[in-house]
């Protein structure tokens, strides 16, 4: 218990340096003020200690300039802390565009990880050093929380929605992964390890173990297994939208609103198909897949849809063959140049 005793956590991500710097500055400032108050209290208690039983102190009641000073100066300092903290938070919350995506599903009481290349892990996460990694996460049951202290990052993992976090490991090693939101009896057993590996080791790791195929190809199997392909076949002209070139594109809805076809939208269509129906299509056509597909299968399906490029030689945008004119104006958003690299498309929160 003494051997591995430490007072400072391991620092292993691109965010841990900036977070620690802010922490140290806060620590110095707050310690200085606390010590000053403590010293002043002790000085007063001793120096003004009552000498005679009937002694009175000074009867001074206020001093406006002094009071104004100790109201305004802390406020200004607090605003400084607020801004610094907010800038850090934006950096922590917003993944860079070139991040690779890894999926995590939390359940009582384990972490299930899926890599786009097809690897699956439980309570372990292998990542390369020097590349930003974005985690797209959901829960099968209660709220969990994905916490890697060495990366200074933490994000609640909720049922029925996706939350994201990201990090870029800077140092190869083995780091704690904790569930940090109380989730039931074995909450303290919902722990694992993050293995940050050099790019070469990571490539090795990806090639060994021989997964059945990429996550997208697994998703393709599900696409047929669950009968999605029966309606969403690629020469469809009628009842169902063509899913090619759909991912992260704007979709015009029957309500006249436009929505981005992100992970959450695709997931919602499986659970609540009649909500937010694309323009030109009617509700009551798609069956509800609640209780039929698991969260992990949905992530595979999303990967599959994400990997569906545009049909070769066409620039037709995705979801509706009968796009109205306003829709047409949207199609410039993602030209073929962008979508040819479907695996690492631009993703915005």
């Amino acid at each position: 218990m003494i051997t591995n005793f430490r007072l400072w956590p391991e620092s292993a991500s691109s965010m841990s340096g900036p977070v620690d710097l802010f922490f140290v500055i806060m620590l110095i400032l707050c310690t200085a003020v606390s010590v000053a108050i403590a010293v002043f209290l002790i000085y007063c208690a001793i120096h003004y200690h009552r000498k005679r039983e009937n002694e009175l102190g000074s009867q001074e009641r206020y001093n406006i300039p002094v009071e104004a000073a100790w109201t305004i100066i802390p406020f200004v300092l607090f605003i400084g802390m607020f801004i610094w903290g907010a800038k850090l938070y934006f950096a922590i919350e917003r993944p860079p565009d070139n991040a690779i995506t890894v999926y995590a599903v939390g359940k009582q009481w384990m972490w299930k990880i899926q890599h786009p290349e097809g690897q699956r892990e439980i309570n372990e996460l292998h990542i390369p050093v020097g590349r930003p990694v974005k985690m797209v996460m959901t829960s099968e049951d209660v709220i969990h929380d994905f916490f890697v202290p060495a990366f200074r990052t933490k994000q609640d993992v909720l049922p029925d929605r996706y939350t994201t976090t990201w990090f870029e490991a800077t140092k190869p090693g083995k780091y704690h992964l904790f569930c940090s939101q109380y989730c039931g009896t074995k909450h303290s057993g919902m722990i694992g390890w993050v293995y940050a590996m050099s790019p070469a080791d990571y490539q090795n790791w990806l090639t060994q173990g021989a997964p059945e195929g990429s996550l997208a190809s697994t998703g393709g199997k599900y696409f047929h297994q669950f009968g999605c392909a029966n309606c969403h076949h690629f020469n469809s002209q009628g009842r169902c939208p063509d899913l090619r070139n759909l991912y992260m594109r704007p979709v015009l809805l029957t309500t006249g609103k436009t929505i981005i076809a992100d992970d959450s939208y695709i997931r919602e269509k499986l659970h609540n198909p009649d909500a937010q129906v694309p323009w030109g299509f009617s509700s009551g056509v798609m069956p509800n897949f609640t209780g039929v597909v698991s969260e992990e299968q949905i992530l595979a399906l999303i990967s599959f849809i994400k990997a569906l490029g545009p049909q070769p030689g066409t620039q037709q945008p995705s979801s509706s063959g009968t796009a109205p004119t306003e829709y047409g104006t949207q199609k410039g958003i993602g030209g073929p140049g962008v979508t040819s690299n479907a695996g690492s498309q631009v993703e915005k929160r």
Partner: protein
Amino acid sequence: MIEAVAEKLEKNYLNEKQGLLSWLLSTDHKRIGILYTFSITCFFFLGGFFALLMRLELLSPRNWLVSAGTYNKLFTMHGIIMVWFFLIPSIPGTLGNFLIPMMVGAKDVAFPKLNLLSWYIFMLGGTVTVYALIRGGVDTGWTFYTPFSTSYSTTYVVAAAVGVFIAGFSTILTALNFVVTIHRMRAPGLTWFKLPVFIWSMYANSLVLILNTPVLAITLVMIAVERIAKVGIFDPALGGDPVLFQHMFWFYSHPAVYTMVLPGMAVISEIIPVFSRKPLFGYKAVAFSSVAIAVLGFLVWGHHMFVAGESVYSALTFSFFSYCVAVPSAIKVFNWTATMHKGSISWDTPMLYAIGFIGLFTIGGMTGLFLAALGLDVHVHDTYFVIAHFHYIMVGGTVMAFLGGVHYWWPKISGKMYPEGLARLSALIVFLGFNLTFFPQFVLGFLGMPRRYAAYPEEFQMLHVLSTAGATILGVGYVLPLCYLLWSWNHGRDAGPNPWRAPGLEWKSTSPPPTHNFEVTPVVTSKLPYDFEAMKEELELV
């Protein structure tokens, strides 16, 4: 003849009526205050017992004393009992009940029967909660996060929620009683700006409780409805939204955190001037800072949800308001400190507790600045850093203030003095034990040790052992006052009406006071509060 007169003079609220029923049916605010003292002391030691078991369990990285499931129940029951059956009613129910009418020069609170009803409702709520505990406990954490509490936990969630729900009515009725008393029953000449700051803080505190407790009640009802009738409110599997629960819970619970510490601030604002023989510095700033805390406290609930998936823009707003609410707290600390400057400072036990309070509250408040900083909160959120932070406020702050207040007003309540040497020693033990318990938890949290873990990686053991050692010392510090205060009830030397030479109205009456507090309704002639100059005559008599 002389004996008859002496007997008449000695009639006070304690000996005027005798027997258990005279207590259980009393509408005297002072007796009700003592009923509350009895109840919350029992709950405090019950909650403390759970804490002790948790600390013992955490001596080892693996489960050695209790199972993980039992550990989860321990921290849940510790939280539920300490928050709703100790901290929130602690100072208002005991010192507030006893002192508010006396400080405003009234015979009783505005609605004495309602006051007694509050205690019975409180005890009913407590009984239901203890029933949930005896039947097998609850394992949701005191925060009842959904959907775990509504759809997954197999423990007595509804019973515990009903207990807390009932106790909420007691909180509201007491708060209402205080607000009306302070508005309507002040003695002639006692205008708002002559009131002790104790009254200002309790007033602000009562307003918050009246406004936020109904939100808790609604939230608990929703939990029960979803759990029993499977109506989808919070559980997404039923069509609900789990984050909605967090919004509703923290909309109640963050102001509730201030209702735990505002009464502590109220006590400290009385002790510091009296034991410094100097008026409270910056009276109006301190008084209005209580009101500011009450108002701003309603605008910061989202800072509990920075990593719960809220939008970055609402996170920004809540972080900003969290820094705003830190300003009035800072003002209070500076004014208390300045009150001691050039005072005539005694080292009596209440003052030791008050100085301890300022130190510990400062550390608790400063670490709150870390948590309000968005980028830092991401790392320390839901770790032991948070536990250490709020225990510095709740235990280092409120419990220290409560103990200080009990010692300060003990001569008034019991008519007897407590043993000063022993009391100073136990104040020191509490201070040292507290710091040894909770300071290592800041380090644990920064290292990444998550909350609510029954078992943990080995590298955290050293700090946990230190913390447990501190907890045992702290336990001794809490048992000692219980023993010597009870002893002094019968054996202490007589205190006399005003042993501290304090200027407040409550000290103008005898100790213990007569049932109607004052022989004649006092008329306030001083132009200012904390009027020590008017006491020169009394001081010269010493």
